């Protein structure tokens, strides 16, 4: 009974001392300007041979931040100097995973709201307490910044009971233990074994690839070294099947390739790995899980079918329709063969594009799909080809009698060659019409392995070929087509009308990218082609006439290439009234996001017809404009008329590779951006705007995340 009472009183005593320590914040916590700083020591007793983690805890006013060990472009990390009794030693301050803190053109790395820097502490085996308590004292220096920076310092100390031997039941100061435990997950971990980190240097910087065992779609790299990377540069990421790869931009002054990239890889879920990347072959991503691959391939197939309905494929379909009418005189098997050869033509050209894309991607170019229409030479040659084709269809001359040079004549040739090149032509003309699905499919394909890219493009090609193939296999449906007769000539001539329409569009495109002077060259080339066509029509089937026509066509091609190279003027990039729209930079978007403001980004280009339509018909509508104004959305326009690497990267980050792309960022920095459909309606835009958080919560957001 006595013994039991004794035990109880001991327990009470322990509880009392416990409370006493817990109530001793006067010297362990100091309030300074814009923050409170606290020394955190979880164990209630200190004894020989003990190892534990103490910490330095900062609680910050909203908007203020302290820095990571590499502060980025400005700022400095906190420092700590301990004064400890004999036998107690500490390791260096440890730094949890930081955040990117954009600041105009600069980028800092640090912490907002609160942070705990852990410090491992070791008590020696021969530790002999000189008193009942032992004191942990530390002088702390820090720099706290918002727009202005304020240096601060404090002397912190905390007492703990000292024992000369390990107690039976060690006690913890609950509040301190909880604090250290709460931040334990924020510390970087070593990369799990079996994974690797590699980097490859290129002209702009480095490609860093890290395997983590699963597909990662959100990662940032924070370098420990301060003079290797450009801090504010966007880090374009590419998910790999078993990790992630990042494109890092090097510091302008970096002259030599470093032996390793040492830093933190912070993933979307907050996990941080400390990586030592060495130069070497990048771990590539093989094919992803089959389910999502099948879905994407399916979408690509449907996208291909829809491509048939797009206005820029229409003329080609008309040509194809014509040849189908002609084929209906042939027997069934031959028609099927023609269908397959047409399919093969489409496949071959898609595969050629895949091969080129892979080669160019390998060379480090982030190319978008509509890119070929960024080349005025390409546009000029397409215009010449279609114009010449149009002349023939209109009846100026018969094609295929003697000409062999132009693809257009190949396409309208009889027999398998004709079918093959009609397939090629269908693909070439289809590219600018980034139909819904197609953008997503290509974006997905570009960020994937060669195999997946190949599969997606093959599906697109098959989708594009499918309707015609179906017709070839179902002669019953062909019967729905009118009987051949004199109307065919009329139809052929009528087909020249959409062809000439397409020519007008191409000429408009050409003027957009090269200016009015180069246009003279292109129009002169048209005139030469018209004369060549007249010669061919006036003396049909004559070799001399064909030679003379060829002599006219060659300078026509020459003039238009010359015009592009010598007469082109820099275009004024934006067409629509641009005063409400700010030009896109990644830093601008990051800045507004950090301020908690919603942003609408319009990725556009003057050569993109659907972009122009969306802007004129939807975005510039009075009611849409009013909604945009009322919702307080920042309007940002990314103009891709001329190829721009940062825009290409921004698109790649969104999983897209072409325009139009419309992105709405809500005011909440943690919500992923919403990508709107490629074909806009006023309802879609207004609906998306109405889905934004209400302005009141936005202003609350501003208070919490105002940038430094």
């Amino acid at each position, binding site marked *: 009974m006595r013994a039991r009472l004794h035990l109880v009183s001991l327990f009470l005593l322990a509880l009392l001392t416990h409370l006493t320590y817990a109530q001793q914040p006067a010297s362990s916590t100091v309030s300074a300007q814009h923050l409170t700083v606290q020394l955190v020591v979880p164990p209630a007793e200190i004894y020989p041979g003990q190892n534990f983690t103490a910490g330095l805890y900062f609680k910050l006013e909203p908007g203020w931040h302290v820095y990571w060990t590499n502060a980025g*472009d*400005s*700022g*400095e990390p906190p420092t700590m100097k301990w004064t400890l009794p004999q036998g107690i030693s500490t390791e260096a301050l440890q730094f949890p995973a930081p955040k990117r803190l954009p*600041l*105009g*053109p*600069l980028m*800092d790395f640090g912490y907002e709201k609160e942070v705990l820097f852990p410090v491992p502490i070791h008590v020696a085996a021969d530790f002999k307490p000189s008193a009942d308590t032992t004191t942990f004292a530390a002088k702390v*220096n820090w*720099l706290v*910044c*918002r*727009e*202005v*920076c*304020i*240096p601060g310092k404090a002397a912190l100390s905390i007492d703990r009971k000292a024992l000369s031997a390990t107690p039976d039941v060690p006690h913890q100061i609950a509040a301190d233990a909880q604090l250290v435990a709460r931040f334990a997950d924020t510390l970087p971990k070593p990369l799990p074994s079996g994974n690797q980190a590699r980097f490859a240097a290129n002209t*702009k910087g480095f490609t860093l690839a890290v395997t983590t065992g699963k597909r990662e779609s959100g990662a940032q790299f924070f370098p420990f070294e*301060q*003079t290797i990377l450009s801090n504010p540069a966007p880090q374009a990421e590419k998910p790999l099947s078993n990790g992630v790869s990042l494109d890092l931009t090097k510091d*302008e*002054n970096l002259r030599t390739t470093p032996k390793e990239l040492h830093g933190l890889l912070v993933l979307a879920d907050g996990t941080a790995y400390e990586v030592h990347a060495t130069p070497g072959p990048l771990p590539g991503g093989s094919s992803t899980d089959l389910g999502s691959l099948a879905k994407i391939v399916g979408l690509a197939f449907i996208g291909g079918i829809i491509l048939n309905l797009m206005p820029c494929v229409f003329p080609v379909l008309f040509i194809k329709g014509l040849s189908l009418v002609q084929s209906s005189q042939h027997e069934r098997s031959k028609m099927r063969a023609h269908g397959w050869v047409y399919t093969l033509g489409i496949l071959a050209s898609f595969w050629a*594009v895949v091969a*080129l894309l892979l080669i*160019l991607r390998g*060379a480090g*170019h982030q*190319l978008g799909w509509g*890119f*070929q229409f*960024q*080349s005025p*030479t*390409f546009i000029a*040659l397409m215009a010449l080809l279609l114009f010449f084709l149009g002349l023939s269809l209109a009846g100026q001359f018969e094609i295929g009698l003697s000409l062999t040079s132009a693809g257009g004549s190949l396409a309208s040739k009889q027999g398998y060659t004709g079918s093959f090149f009609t397939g090629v032509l269908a693909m070439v003309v289809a590219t600018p019409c980034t139909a819904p699905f197609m953008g997503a499919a290509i974006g997905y394909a570009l960020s994937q392995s060669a195999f997946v890219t190949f599969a997606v493009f093959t599906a697109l090609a098959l989708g594009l070929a499918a309707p015609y193939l179906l017709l070839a296999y179902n002669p019953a449906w062909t019967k729905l087509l009118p009987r051949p007769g004199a109307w065919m000539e009329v139809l052929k001539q009528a087909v020249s009308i959409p062809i000439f329409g397409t020519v007008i569009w191409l000429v408009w495109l050409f003027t957009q990218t090269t200016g009015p002077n180069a246009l003279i060259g292109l129009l002169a080339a048209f005139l030469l082609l018209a004369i060549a066509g007249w010669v061919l029509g006036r003396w049909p089937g004559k070799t001399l006439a064909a030679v003379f026509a060829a002599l006219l066509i060659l300078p026509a091609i020459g003039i238009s290439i010359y015009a592009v190279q010598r007469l082109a003027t820099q275009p004024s990039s934006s067409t629509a009234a641009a005063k409400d729209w700010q030009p896109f930079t990644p830093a601008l978007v990051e*800045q507004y996001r950090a*301020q908690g403001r919603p942003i609408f980004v319009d990725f556009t280009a003057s050569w993109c017809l659907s972009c122009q339509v969306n802007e004129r018909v939807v975005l510039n509508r009075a009611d849409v404009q009013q909604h945009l104004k009322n919702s307080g959305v920042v309007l940002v326009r990314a103009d891709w008329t*001329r*190829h721009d*690497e940062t825009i290409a990267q921004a698109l790649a980050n969104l999983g897209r590779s072409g325009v139009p792309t419309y992105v709405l960022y809500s005011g909440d920095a943690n919500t992923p951006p919403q990508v709107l459909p490629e074909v806009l309606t006023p309802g879609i835009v207004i609906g998306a705007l109405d889905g934004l958080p209400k302005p009141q919560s936005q202003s609350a957001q*501003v208070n919490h995340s*105002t*940038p*430094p």
Partner: protein
Amino acid sequence: MLRLQSAAIVALLATAFSAYAVRVGDPAPDFTGVDSHGQSHTLSSYHGKLVVLEWTNSNCPFTKKHYDSGNMQSLQKQWTAKGVVWFTILSSAPDHDGYKTAAEENAYIAKEHASPTAVLLDPTGKIGHAYEAKTTPHMFVIDPTGKIVYEGAIDDHPTTDTSDIKSSKNYVSDALTEALAGKQIATSYTRPYGCSVKYQNSAE
């Protein structure tokens, strides 16, 4: 073929756009700035002389470290006496931390006994952006041929503590000494330390 050609055009454009980044060893971007007495200075007109650019912000604790201790003033005195042109540049935007009108800046110079060749007022951040100046202080040394020979921190102690100055290695003094002796600059690039330059729109 066509696609390859367009890729080449793109590559060309890309290099053209990235060509003007500031780098040690490259020609220093030319600028014309108006000083606190209303006089304008053009960098290229100081060809043949060593030029120091010093980004400043009187409210920044890192800048204060070097002015409160008299370190910056004595550097300015010492080197301008040897014919070095010293421009202190203030790129804080109006309503931003450290912004000063010409009169305020002149009062500050007088109070601090600072003696740069001139204090250039750059409230639009034009000069700051041309040099990608990041911090206060951020130092540049330009040689008589107009090349940047040093860029970075003022010294090797990135702190706000004046007592650190005595034990610091001053990179700017070293670079100027070596440049005057016609020697190669041993340390030509360091990470600048300090507060961020308070450009227009840099924060709310």
